């Protein structure tokens, strides 16, 4: 130990104190690290080395010793120091600021709270210092109040409430925040007083950040004392009605990170407001995504989650792709959840929801995702609606032809008349099989070998229609008269090459890949032979729809029609 202290003292003399602390921290075992902590505390408390002053010299300079690891040593040391409150406060603020946007930026706050709470005078002194120099020290108001409350909850809650009524909005916000973090233990009267106070504050205040903090604190208080639920609902409702994106973000944090703790009444109210999220608020959407995923997995909240999701997608410009956790869950199609949504949403015909199905399928790693209409959604469905659903599946899933075909075939058992069977067969032939003979043809072959007689017959009929179509093409390849002029071909190739060159240049500029690998030019041959770890590679194919060239307008027009058509009620 003494040896360690000597090293540190010598390092301090040599102006290498922080470097030495860092080097020791990465070299020592856990036990030895504890010795380091003790040594630092001892050096400070014996006034040999002013550790606080020394750490105040720490800077977050890239390439220099590791800022976070060095600062982490202080986190262990700080609560044990007999240090001047002001110097500690300044050091904590400085090192928190130095951390910048780092997720670990605020890890010094808890040691600071612990430091303050070790002696009753420290929170009191810290608050006085903050009041004197609010502009520099205000960030430590909340931790100080929390620390004080650990020594005397009544007094410091009272102080916090006073600060909430302060004229400075920054002080209000921090004081409000502290109300949620204070541990009220069994003091119900105090809790009621605080919650009522917050309810009143919501009515009086308009600041978005303040309302956000009220939401966070209210939920923390609710978690300590669930009897406050009705107040919480009222406060959330009031705050979210008045607030904007920060308040909504606070609500989304509650929704996303404490989904299981939210009571039904509060959940309904939260969902009602969270649908107003804007697509540009990525953080809020991420929080919502986490919460939604949990709701969808729970049976008794699934319906509410679906209703919320529908409203969210219908309300504005939000695409389901941003809700990646929820989308991944849906893609698992557990208990036919995706089938259910697909059937319901295609039947509904709403563009946003139908588009969402397309987005979900697009995000699937399996290009041949198989879906089927949900029988529960098809009860008492007439043939018009079945064809409507089939056309929606084609309209939105045309570029996922196996998925679309699987949906169409799944409708067959629910069809009661031959005419509708014929229509479904025609739709499978054109546009699906006609445009994607490779993918859909293979899938139909598979189904015609394995399925019930109806589906087998339809699959075979579609395949035969395609074979007839191809048979009709026999001989046309010899009609050299109809070939476009050579000059046209040359113009097209020139333009195409130019476009490809531009696209390549753009892609290379943005390509992470090109930063990782080198570019190789092959002078001869059609492929490159490389051995990279795995002895095989996945073969990815893409089929270009046949009508893309023959009649792109009709294809586009048909898909648009299928997408936009509605059933007249």
């Amino acid at each position, binding site marked *: 130990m003494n040896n360690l202290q000597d090293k540190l003292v010598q390092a301090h003399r040599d102006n290498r104190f922080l470097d030495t602390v860092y080097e020791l921290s990465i070299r020592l075992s856990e036990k030895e690290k504890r010795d380091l902590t003790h040594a630092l505390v001892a050096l400070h408390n014996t006034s040999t080395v002013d550790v606080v002053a020394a750490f105040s010299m720490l800077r977050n300079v890239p390439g220099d010793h590791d800022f976070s690891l060095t600062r982490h040593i202080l986190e262990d040391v700080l609560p044990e120091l007999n240090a001047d409150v002001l110097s500690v406060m300044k050091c904590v603020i400085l090192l928190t600021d130095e951390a910048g946007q780092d997720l670990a930026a605020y890890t010094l706050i808890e040691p600071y709270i612990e430091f303050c709470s070790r002696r009753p005078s420290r929170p009191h002194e810290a608050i006085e210092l903050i009041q004197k120099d609010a502009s520099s020290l205000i960030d430590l108001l909340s931790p100080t109040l929390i620390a004080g409350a650990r020594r005397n909850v009544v007094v410091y809650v009272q102080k916090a409430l006073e600060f909430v009524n302060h004229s400075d909005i920054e002080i209000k916000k921090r004081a409000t925040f502290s109300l949620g973090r204070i541990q009220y233990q069994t003091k119900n009267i105090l809790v009621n007083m605080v919650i009522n106070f917050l309810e009143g504050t919501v009515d009086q205040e308009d600041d978005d950040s303040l309302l956000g903090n009220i939401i966070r604190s209210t939920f923390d208080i609710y978690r300590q004392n669930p009897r406050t639920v009705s107040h919480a609902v009222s406060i959330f409702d009031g705050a979210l009605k008045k607030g904007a994106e920060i308040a909504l973000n606070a609500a989304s944090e509650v929704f996303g990170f404490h989904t299981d703790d939210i009571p039904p009444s509060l959940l309904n109210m939260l969902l009602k407001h969270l649908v107003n999220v804007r697509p540009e608020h990525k953080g809020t959407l991420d929080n919502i995504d986490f919460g939604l995923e949990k709701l969808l997995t729970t049976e008794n909240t699934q319906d509410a989650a679906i209703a919320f999701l529908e409203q969210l997608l219908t309300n504005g410009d939000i695409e389901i792709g941003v809700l990646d956790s929820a989308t991944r869950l849906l893609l698992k199609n557990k208990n036919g959840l995706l089938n259910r949504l697909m059937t319901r949403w295609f039947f509904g015909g709403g563009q946003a929801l139908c588009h969402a199905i397309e987005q979900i399928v697009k995000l699937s790693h399996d290009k041949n995702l198989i879906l089927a209409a949900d029988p529960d959604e098809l009860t008492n469905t007439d043939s018009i609606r079945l064809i409507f659903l089939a056309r929606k599946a084609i309209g939105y899933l045309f570029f996922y032809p196996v998925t679309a075909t699987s949906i169409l075939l799944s409708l067959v058992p629910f069809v009661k008349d031959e005419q509708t069977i014929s229509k479904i067969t025609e739709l499978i032939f054109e546009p699906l099989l006609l445009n994607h003979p490779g993918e859909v043809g293979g899938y139909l072959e598979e189904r015609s070998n394995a399925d019930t007689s109806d589906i087998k017959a339809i699959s075979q009929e579609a395949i035969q229609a395609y074979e007839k*179509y191809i048979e009709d093409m026999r001989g046309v390849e010899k*009609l050299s008269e*109809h070939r476009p*002029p*050579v000059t*046209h071909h040359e113009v097209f190739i020139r333009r195409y090459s130019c476009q490809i060159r531009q696209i390549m240049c753009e892609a290379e500029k943005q390509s992470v890949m090109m930063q990782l690998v080198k570019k190789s030019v092959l002078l001869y041959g059609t492929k490159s032979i490389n051995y990279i770890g795995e002895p095989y590679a996945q073969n990815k194919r893409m089929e270009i729809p046949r009508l893309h060239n023959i009649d792109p*307008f009709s294809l586009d027009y048909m898909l648009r029609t299928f997408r936009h058509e509605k059933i007249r009620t």
Partner: protein
Amino acid sequence: MKLIIRQYLASLKERGELDAILPDLLSELGLNVYSRPGRGTRQDGVDVAAVGKLEDDDTDKVYLFSIKSGDLTRPGWDGNTPQALRPSLNEIRDTYIPNRLPVEHRDKEIVICICLGGEIREEVRQQIEGYIRQFNCERSVTFQKWNGDKLADVIQSKFLREELLPEESRSQLRKALALLDEPEASYRYFADLIRSLGTVEGKEDKEQLTALRQMNICLWILYAWARDVDNVESAYLSGEITLLHGWNITKAHAEKSTKVSNSTKETFQSLLFTYHQISYYFLTKTVLPFADRQHALSVAVGGSCDLDINLRMFDILGRLALGGLWTYYLLFGLLENEADTREEITEKLTPYATAVKRLIFNNPTLFLPIKDSQVIDISIAVLLLMIEGHSKSEIKSWLDELMQRAIFCHRANGKYPCNIESYADLLDHPRRDENYLTENTCGSVLYPMVGLWASLYGDEQIFEQVKTIKSDHLQHCNFQLWFPDDTSEQHSYTNIEDHGAVLSDVDISQPLKAFADQIFGECDHSPQCKELSAFKYGVWPLILVACRHYRLPIPIHFFKAFRSDADSTQPEQSEETVPKASAK
């Protein structure tokens, strides 16, 4: 050059091909052709008969030609086929010479000419010699063998000799033949050749006649070679330009009845026949068998992109409909005096009209042109279907779809019809640049024509769509219609200069009937259309060929005949420009 001609002669068929060029050849040699080949009439072994003196003759002789295509083989000499040579020669001996030789030529020496596109094969040479010896013992006739080599000599020395066809023109012909696999280039060389041959201003009538015959023989050579390489695209286009330049020479002789003028008119008929041969071959080989198959012709184009398919399919549509209109024209001419003419015409037209309809509905790219100028092909197709008379619902359905798509494309920035003609620029169409729309849709013939057809059918819905596209998307666009003017007769067939006049700013906002009155009223102020020589002398499809080939709108006079009197508020009785089969 001789090899080229021999190759061409060897590939000719007997009927309609080798016998079609021979009369011109003989006339050019100085003989007077008094009997030409005809179908269905009894020939008694003689395909062509002529009288006169050839270079080595002292006196006039009668030349009787029996024609066989290709090489003469054993079956071709004395087989069981109706075209075998020996039975034909027997018929000449037994029937033609005693009974059908014109009285004025009976005292003349007779020369029977065995005319072949190819050669006499060794296997039958002895038999032919024996036959000729036996024949000579019975009658005082002589025999000559006109094989491919001799015909090639005659063609070269009489039609294509240096003084008549300069080296530059011969070179153009050779290039056109060499590039048949690249029809665009081949046609370009052939068109240059035709333009140089067709420049006859200041030349004697006889020289003009020779030029016309040269055009015909060159076209035949091109066609025969094109068939051999299995690509008649260049021949089709060359046929059109040759026909038009041919008429430009012939029209001056239309009212003359001199020997040269009559020969000119006969040669034009030969040229017309050649054109029909090519057109018929093109359509029956490359279009008609595939018109009823879904997407077949679109696939046949095999282009780099949808633009290629669109451009070609409208081209095919125009050619097919034009073929139907020529058929109608020919049948009408043949059956004019018979009682049930119209019924029969309708029946013969049906396959063409059906093919046009199937072509459209099996190749959906035909539902929307990318170029406004494709209205030319649409107009020819609509004209055929109107003449056929049983396609009202299909025409309306087509036009309705066309308008719906055009409106949709304007709304969705799709490939709406535009005035761009450059292929490279069309590839980029439509762009979203500022002023792009106004610059590239500055004028339209398509929409007023659709409005006009809507008016003929009294279809308010289609007419409203035309109004909508004008008011919602094309307010800047000058809706216009083209009319022939005083200079059109001079330039219609050669397209050396622009001609015609445009009725500008056609007002589509007026009611349908008033619109039709305005447009058809303009026909009465534009009598130059009916004064075009092709109309005047009864070959009105030539106007359509000229419009198709040189990309000029079809004069709306063609459609005036389909306006029922009840629809017209004009005081005068409408005069039919094109006879109606059973227009409804």
